[in-house]
């Protein structure tokens, strides 16, 4: 228990608009989700639109509270009102649209927003802001207006704004969905760096398979339930199952899978281009 950053027990949730009982039964967003996420780990949550993955994310920092079941963040019960701010400080959240989460007109002012809310003394805020901006490689831009930045840069500022709270865990809800490929890469680099260097627990919600492949663990959610929960290799090798719920697998995995199906001796547990290349070379040399 002490090793778990997030512990969800039998979460059931539906949005309050559907208050009639029989309708509620049909409109459950989360259907009995149990999940444990270890401290310092990097977990990707996959699922297509409307699968409940964002709803689950919002439970992880007490923006939403489950109808039934409990969720603990570092041992704190999210249904207890007095834990609210402690949980939000421990589990920071980054959203999809960087424009809609930047509050201030100057980059450093925005990064300072969370520590200001927490009542951190000014000198300490200064330190935190500088460190957070350096961690996301945006320090040179500290006096810029957010509107002057590219999408990837804005999203990095948003991440810095969360890091300035000094959280143990960062939940990213499709942080790269609105970015161009370059911005996406910048953001992913920062996320990996934070996980590896600062040992921050990362929960990445995404529908890009290539991003999920970078995680240690992939949880696939469909229709409010956890379908698969394993290492990326094990998850993506189940190409059939993934396709059935409308999800893709990385291109290289699919290639290996098709080759395997056609009778070639190639492993289906391939998720990176490099692995694919080595496997194909080996295959060609054998012939």
């Amino acid at each position, binding site marked *: 228990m002490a090793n778990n950053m997030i512990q969800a027990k039998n979460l059931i949730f539906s949005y309050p608009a559907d208050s009639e009982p029989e309708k509620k039964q049909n409109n459950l967003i989360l259907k009995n989700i149990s999940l444990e996420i270890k401290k310092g780990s990097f977990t990707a949550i996959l699922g297509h639109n409307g699968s409940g993955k964002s709803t689950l994310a919002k439970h992880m920092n007490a923006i939403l509270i489950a109808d039934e079941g409990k969720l603990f963040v570092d041992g704190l019960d999210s249904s207890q009102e007095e834990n609210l701010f402690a949980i939000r*400080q421990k589990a920071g959240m980054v959203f999809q*649209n960087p424009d809609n989460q930047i*509050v201030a007109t100057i980059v450093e002012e925005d990064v300072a927003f969370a520590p200001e809310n927490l009542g951190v003394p000014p000198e300490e*805020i200064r330190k935190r802001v500088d460190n957070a901006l350096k961690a996301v490689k945006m320090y040179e831009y500290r006096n810029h207006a957010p509107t002057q930045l590219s999408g990837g840069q804005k999203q990095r500022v948003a991440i810095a704004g969360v890091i300035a709270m000094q959280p143990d865990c960062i939940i990213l809800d499709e942080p790269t969905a609105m970015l161009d490929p370059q911005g996406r890469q910048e953001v992913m680099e920062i996320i990996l760096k934070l996980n590896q260097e600062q040992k921050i627990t990362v929960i990445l919600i995404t529908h890009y398979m290539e991003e999920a492949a970078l995680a240690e663990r992939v949880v696939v959610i469909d229709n409010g339930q956890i379908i698969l929960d394993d290492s990326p290799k094990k998850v993506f090798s189940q190409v059939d199952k993934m396709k059935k719920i409308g999800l893709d697998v990385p291109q290289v995995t699919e290639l290996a899978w098709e080759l395997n199906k056609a009778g070639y001796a190639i492993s289906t547990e391939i998720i990176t281009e490099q692995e694919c290349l080595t496997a194909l070379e080996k295959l060609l040399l054998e012939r």
Partner: protein
Amino acid sequence: MLKDITLGQYFPVDSMIHKLDPRFKIINTMLFIIMLFSGNYFYNLIIGAVFVILVQILSKIPFKISIKSIKPILPILIFTAILNLVFIDSGETLWHWNFLKITEGGIYTSVFMIGRIILLILGSSLLTYTTSPILLTDAIEYLLSPLKKINFPVHEMAMMMSIALRFIPTLLEETDKIISAQKARGAMIDNGKLIDRVKAMIPILIPLFVSAFRRAEELATAMECRCYRGGEGRTRLRQLKATGKDYCSLMICSLFLIISVMLNFIIN
């Protein structure tokens, strides 16, 4: 095209006026406004003009830019001048036609009023030219903080102002996009009769409002995620600190005001 509109324009130049504490700048601007209204003699205007020119030079803001700020209020100036010219009836009558007549007093008042309004605009735009919006809101929050005692939501108001300022460029960009999207679908926005043009605004405003509401909701969630809980117990990264220069500027402004008021007594 919409990007040309700038609100509360700020000109980031390095000058001693820029560096002054924004709280003092706001108070000084208020003193300046009182000074303009402290007397009805041209001497008062001359003192005001001297003050504006002095600040203008010290702030390193190009005169051209300040002159531009007069342009949008030209209709108001003309309107005021005509009203004063026609309705003030004092001194010798110079010209009359039916019930309309122009008197010496009328001419004097209208010229005086134009001068006063121009100085008012020039002086107060210097405040926004030399102070960044974020500092301005900080200063307003500070200056209004005594009102917290009567439960006036000072912090919330300052927060609203700074968020509004933050979203002006974002929403302008969005409006541009919507206009382009509607034009691409054959909407006639720039031509037609006035009524047609007003009607053409509806398909622009509705998507804009919908998206603004969506943004507002997302922003509120994001703020909650970053532990926002109102002004209580909140600290600030940027601390406003008054220095000797700030007190000095306050004294100079007060001096101008006193001279202006004294002149009235001397002339009387």
